[in-house]
């Protein structure tokens, strides 16, 4: 039996107003789609409200009181997010999302460091956001892409890793697979990549929300993640970059705030991190991101990880009996190697039909390719259903999922 920390979980649920709102069919909302985007606690929603009602103002150049407060809170949020991953504030670049963060590296670092014949190493389990920018960059520069292969359980095959790393200029690898939950063995790959002289970018879109992350201990050059998947508002993400690398990179977007001195013909650029933040920032949502990581820190990322592991263990236990009736669960079925994602198909019920039937019970899951089409093609799946967990999920949500699957079996007369 799994020992849930039910008390904390109930306190957490109470912080998320959306979870108290029944669906139009009067069902309890069973939100199992946090890998797509997380729900937001009152503290984050209230922070936006307070910003707009009390001190909304443009930052950095404002002399008056509310502008000073906005600037302070905005930069304090950066410091909070920096601390959350053990970085310095100057190393935290605000972006819209993980996707923009990765593109920033592809444009700014990539265009200046990558040349014809260079090799980018990535994996077969990447989200489109950590694949397509490198395809585009490779096409533009004449570099080539190489892939760390995936096995049938959704785990990376490292047998050939030394050969794969030979001559690699950039390693772009996910921390956690959003489709399968696989936690990639960064501790085995990154030191080798470092030794091979590669620059290292980790797509942390599913890492930072779910695992304790220390960018210094990991020794990554870049780490990209999105606020909206970790309790923060939509529209705000982060690129962490090592200071020396960021200093050496040319700006990405140009405009207000990222400059030092502008003439009609010539311009010099601002210090980090503002060099990479052109135009008016997403002030409110950055402040909200700061509140979100405070919320996670108060829970403790070890608690978050343990809670998700408990949920996964319990889910595997409850789902096991259905496997005899045609339930196929993909990915590593080991809570120690997997973050809170369960990808599955049930007999001949298509994932989209499954999602529609579960929806009638208030259960929110995702169906489709999860922005990992090449992985789906390789695995031979046209679509999977995906349930994903976060801090506010409990055993009751797993129970609801299991009942939902039973209902789907009845509807499809399995």
């Amino acid at each position: 039996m799994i020992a849930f920390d039910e008390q904390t979980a109930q306190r957490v649920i109470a912080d998320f107003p959306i979870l108290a709102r029944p669906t139009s069919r009067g069902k309890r909302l069973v939100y199992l789609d946090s890998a797509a985007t997380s729900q937001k606690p009152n503290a984050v929603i209230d922070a936006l409200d307070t910003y707009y009602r009390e001190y909304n103002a443009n930052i950095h150049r404002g002399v008056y009181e509310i502008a000073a407060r906005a600037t302070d809170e905005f930069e304090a949020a950066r410091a909070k997010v920096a601390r959350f991953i053990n970085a310095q504030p100057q190393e935290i670049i605000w972006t819209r999302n993980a996707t923009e963060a990765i593109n920033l590296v592809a444009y700014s670092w990539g265009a200046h460091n990558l040349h014809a014949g260079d090799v980018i190493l990535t994996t077969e389990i990447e989200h489109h956001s950590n694949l397509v920018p490198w395809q585009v960059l490779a096409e533009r520069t004449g570099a080539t892409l190489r892939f760390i292969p995936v096995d049938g359980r959704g785990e990376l095959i490292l047998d050939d890793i030394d050969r794969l790393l030979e001559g690699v200029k950039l390693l772009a690898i996910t921390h956690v697979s959003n489709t399968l939950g696989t936690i990639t063995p960064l501790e085995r790959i990154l030191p080798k990549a470092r030794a091979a002289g590669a620059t290292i970018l980790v797509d942390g879109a599913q890492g930072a929300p779910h695992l304790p992350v220390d960018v210094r201990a990991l020794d990554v050059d870049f780490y990209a993640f999105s606020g909206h998947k970790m309790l923060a508002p939509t529209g705000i993400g982060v690129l962490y970059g090592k200071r020396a690398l960021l200093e050496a990179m040319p700006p990405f977007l140009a405009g207000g705030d990222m400059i030092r001195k502008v003439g009609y013909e010539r311009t010099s650029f601002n210090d980090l991190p503002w060099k990479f933040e052109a135009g008016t920032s997403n002030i409110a949502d950055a402040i909200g991101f700061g509140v979100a990581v405070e919320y996670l820190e108060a829970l403790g990322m070890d608690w978050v990880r343990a809670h998700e592991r408990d949920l996964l263990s319990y889910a595997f236990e409850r789902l096991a009996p259905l496997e005899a009736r045609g339930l196929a669960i993909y990915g590593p079925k080991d809570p120690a190697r997997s973050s809170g994602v369960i990808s599955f198909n049930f007999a001949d019920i298509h994932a989209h039909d499954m999602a529609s039937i579960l929806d009638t019970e208030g259960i929110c899951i995702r169906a489709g390719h999860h922005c990992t089409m090449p992985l789906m093609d390789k695995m031979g799946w046209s679509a999977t259903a995906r349930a994903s967990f976060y801090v506010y999920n409990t055993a009751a949500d797993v129970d609801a999922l299991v009942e939902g699957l039973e209902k789907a079996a009845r509807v499809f007369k399995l």
Partner: protein
Amino acid sequence: MDDFYRDFILDHYRNPRNQGHLDAPSASAEDLNPLCGDRIRMELDVRDGVIRDVRFSGQGCAISQASASMLTESIKGMRLEDAAKLSKDIVLENVGIGISPTRMKCAMLGLRVLKSAAIGEIAGWPDEE
């Protein structure tokens, strides 16, 4: 939505009519619903402006596959011209009640491909809303 999956829908899903390929189709088209990955191909045998035979292939959810299967039954013997002008009503009549707006794209995929084959160009897609 759960009341959508009635017996005849499941039957069309599990035993699709007119599935497969024609030896020498006079018109064909293929499309996918990029958001859910459903894919359908339609092949037509047209003589004297009339659809004599039709085959569809592809993969996807019960909604898209059953809708396509039923559609193939509806159009055999239809004038190509009329097929090109079909509205979404034919699909809605075929499948009956219960499609939620989010799944309408799935239901209309077969029609979209049929019309593409029939008119041989991109214009005139059925309204998917």
